């Protein structure tokens, strides 16, 4: 650290030696000013400090996807994100997917397909699926995208693509085939096509 810090550096030095910091998390469009211990993850901030218990704690180690949220539109495991490091970011949880009483097309599709049993993994599956649709549209490849696909172009979501891209979300109830079907329905415009891609 500098011996005679400038004012801006001095402010940061205080944060560096303190164990807590002030921050603002924008969750589902609402800014929440918070003062949190640096150890607090986004998942714990949501569940313990903001009473948003949609995102679930499964493993707490990035291995199950139950805690998946969207950060600036991209999906991430909130159990591995320190809240202080997300200061100012826009976070969307499962509670923010519906518009008023109108469910998100993926929520409709999950209901329609009965794509869950206990439902514990579902909020993470939903946020992950929202992220997946955006990623494919933005041209993000996956490990099953064919070599021949044009780089940068939107990637068609085959059942294999959906399975691979959803592999970060585990479901102990094994609802996988219907989850793939539900995501497939939304890919097809939110209409149940009658064609079961996975089951």
């Amino acid at each position: 650290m500098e011996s005679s810090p400038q004012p801006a550096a001095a402010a940061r030095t205080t944060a560096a030696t303190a164990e807590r910091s002030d921050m603002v998390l924008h969750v589902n469009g609402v800014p929440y000013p918070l003062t949190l211990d640096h150890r607090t993850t986004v998942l714990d901030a949501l569940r313990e400090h903001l009473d948003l218990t949609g995102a679930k704690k499964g493993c707490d180690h990035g291995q199950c996807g139950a805690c998946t949220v969207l950060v600036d539109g991209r999906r991430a495991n909130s159990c591995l994100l320190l809240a202080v490091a997300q200061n100012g970011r826009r976070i969307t949880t499962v509670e923010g997917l519906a518009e008023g009483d109108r469910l998100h097309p993926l929520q409709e599709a999950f209901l329609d397909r009965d794509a869950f049993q206990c439902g514990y993994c579902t909020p993470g599956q939903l946020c992950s699926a929202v992220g997946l649709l955006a990623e494919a549209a933005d041209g993000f490849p996956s490990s099953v995208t064919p070599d021949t696909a044009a780089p940068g172009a939107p990637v068609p979501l085959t059942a294999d693509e959906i399975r691979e891209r959803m592999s970060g979300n585990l479901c102990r109830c094994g609802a996988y085939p219907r989850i793939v079907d539900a995501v497939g329905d939304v890919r097809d415009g939110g209409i149940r096509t009658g064609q079961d891609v996975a089951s």
Partner: protein
Amino acid sequence: MKPFGYLRAASVEEAVRAGAAQPGAKFLGGGTNLVDLMKLGVEEPPLLVDVSGLPLDRIEELPDGGLRIGATVRNSELAAAVAVRERYPVLSQALLSGASGQLRNTATTGGNLVQRTRCTYFQDISKPCNKRAPGTGCPARDGAHRDLAVLGHSAHCVATQPSDLAVALAALDATAHLHGPDGEREVPVTEFHRLPGEHPEQDTVLRPGELITAVRLPPDRPGAHSRYRKARDRASFAFALVSVGAVLEVRGGAVRYAALAFGGLAHRPWRARAAEEVLRGAPATADTFARAADAELAAARPLRENGFKITLARNLAIDALTDLAART
């Protein structure tokens, strides 16, 4: 988890200064490995210097035809970059074979390279481990080591480096740009990770406070093809048992250029120089590829439960090279 200070670095210089000033301070990239290990009590930094907001998030074309990848470029962005998919497919494929969509969106280039071993004893603070607690011993050597090293291990540690990205970068002759308290330097990615020797606690050649600022790729070879192959216990979202990154150029039925690197076999991505020696100038046939793999793997010293990795590495290498040869 122990309490810690947090500093969002405003510049590379500030990050390096803060990282060097406090012993044990750690840089925070995406946090997908570091935060995990802090929860487990394996890492206990008194200070996190957050480098994820530094302006190192760009992929730039270099005048020589190479590519400069900033240290905070996210794994998913790097894998999707058109220049990478067109000219360095092995790199895109390696990234996409690793972790999950969520994790790749968060993980950074620098953090991926510096991620620590998945050895189960290392991650369990109730167990001895020379890497975590020097001098306490290595229970993996006689214990659960199915996933661990067959090449370059020592009496002190048999851990493997788990990064898929590092394997592709090793095959591509990439260079890491480092910025430390004593200035800047460049290290080939093949020399960035250490072999464990007597000091398994040192994963890499990084000095205290030294930050990776970028990774540089040399120009791609016109006429060469590249790919990544990874064998694992399940079809997706699992670390490699063995992986291979390969670059191959065939002209008139003979190998003109070959670069091969293995993952999952050692404490660092294993650049297969002996195999490359056999390949150079030889007919591009399955027989040559088998001889090349054997030449490299002759040095392997399997542990009780991981001899299967040698066969797996041999088959993966032959498969990847055969596939690449068929494209020319």
